[in-house]
């Protein structure tokens, strides 16, 4: 089940989009999100779709794989749809007891669901095409100007890297401890909510302890390799703006321009 989640995963293909500077992609993603929230009618979604298709094709990530990322969030999308469907006032076309469905609600539901779907697809393109370490690198660089006002850019980026590094390890560990406790007769699946919460103690306590042990070991290993924070640190792969990045930013500016134009005119 946990394995099915594709959000946040990296899908290496070596495409042009993969090779873009992470800063371009991060900025591009924010522009995309901002543009998406400016949309007022369906017309504009055609532009969004065109842009998404262009990026997905360019990235060589199979469309099916991108759509798979929607699956774990289907519930959220459905809830959004139905809340809008039921809660919007207007011309009723279906009535069942206290529940009213309106044409306006249907439009609003589809509109909001689409916005969510495009939002998820767009942001997942960032992680699908950018390796976690490059992504954190990009974030660190973008946050760098904020260092002066006390934002610990390097530390935040390092924390993110380590978290990403240890997610698979901890998932594996969770599975192991769960099985070990099940071998001792533990039951994680039945009972009421309170009972289930209690049954998690034999899983969570060992997991916490082992995470602390790992953190301790890792801190020591990092110190032994001369880690002392971001000062005077170099990077093997320095980030470099290229022509493609400029092109990417131009494209995103154009997108923003169209969104603004569609909103005000």
């Amino acid at each position, binding site marked *: 089940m946990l394995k099915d989640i594709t959000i946040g995963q990296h899908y290496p293909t070596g495409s042009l989009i993969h090779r873009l500077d992470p800063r371009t992609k991060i900025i591009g993603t924010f522009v995309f999100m901002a543009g998406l929230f400016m949309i007022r009618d369906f017309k504009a979604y055609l532009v969004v779709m065109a842009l998404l298709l262009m990026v997905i094709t360019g990235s060589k990530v199979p469309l099916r794989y991108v759509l798979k990322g929607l699956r774990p969030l289907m519930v959220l999308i459905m809830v959004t749809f139905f809340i809008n469907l039921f809660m919007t006032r207007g011309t009723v076309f279906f009535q069942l007891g206290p529940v009213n469905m309106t044409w306006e609600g249907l439009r609003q539901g589809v509109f909001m669901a689409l916005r969510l779907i495009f939002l998820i697809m767009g942001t997942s393109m960032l992680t699908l095409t950018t390796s976690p370490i490059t992504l954190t690198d990009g974030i660190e660089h973008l946050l760098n100007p904020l260092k002066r006002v006390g934002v610990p850019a390097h530390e935040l980026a390092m924390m993110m890297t380590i978290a990403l590094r240890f997610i698979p390890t901890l998932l594996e560990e969770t599975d192991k401890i769960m099985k070990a406790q099940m071998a001792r007769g533990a039951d994680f699946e039945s009972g009421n909510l309170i009972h289930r919460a209690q049954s998690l103690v034999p899983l969570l306590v060992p997991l916490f302890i082992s995470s602390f*042990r790992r953190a301790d*070991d890792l801190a*020591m290993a990092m110190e032994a390799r*001369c880690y002392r924070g971001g000062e005077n640190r170099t990077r*093997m792969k320095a980030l470099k703006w290229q022509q493609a990045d400029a092109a990417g930013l131009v494209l995103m500016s154009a997108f923003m321009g169209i969104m603004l134009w569609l909103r005000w005119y």
Partner: protein
Amino acid sequence: MEMNQQKPIIEVKGLTFEYRSHDEADLIALKEVTLNVSKGEHLVVIGHNGSGKSTLAKHLNALLLPTAGTVLVAGMDTKKQELLWEIRQTAGMVFQNPDNQIVATIVEEDVAFGPENLGIDPAEIGIRVTNALHRVDMSDYRHKAPHLLSGGQKQRIAIAGVIAMKPACIIFDEPTAMLDPSGRREVVNAIRNLNREEGITVIHITHFMEEAVEAHRVVVMEDGQLVMQGTPREVFARVDELKALGLDVPQMTDLAAELRSEGIDLPEDVLTVEEMVNHLCQLKSKN
């Protein structure tokens, strides 16, 4: 020392270390340990858990500081804060758990971590990473995610990460304890090559006696002290003393001791199967 006129790379003098614990009396983990390691030496430290091996190891790159006595790494006193990074760059360290010492999500990024911390020029880091991966025979895995590798491969990545810092000396703290036999072989071979081919001084802590056989010198620790040292032959010949300490001896040495006790004329210092075969065949032909 006659084999090496130079100053030893590591000098431990009267090292005592106490763990501060809040409820009970302070725990003495090391008692007046004195030990020199010369350049290019392959030293193996054995002893059972709690004998102070790991505590000693952590003193050699200033992860722990002595309660009393001194530790010099290439002449640098580990107590001098300003020398800390130079000391850690000179004496690298590989730990027991392969999972808990890899920082990055891609092999090459992890190997680059140490040199990056040293502030080395990016182009130079790239060269070092390539070389380090080549030396542990992991070049093909450069762009892989570490969590998909086997234990032995992860340990070799950890070793590459240390080599990329160009240390003069590497301390291995039970690097094979969590590995299966093939992983153990991979790591032991990598360690031996570093010592024999690259001339890197190796201090290898283990409780697998077979791994000690090829060392230049073996040191046995017990209760925070050095209780025996010598060549593997000299140390393993003392079968009864080692067994009394709860340690293993290579099976051939053990068998030789058993046969000697029955009046068979075998030397005390048989270590390998080949040697045993030779001795037995000689005995047979004498009869």
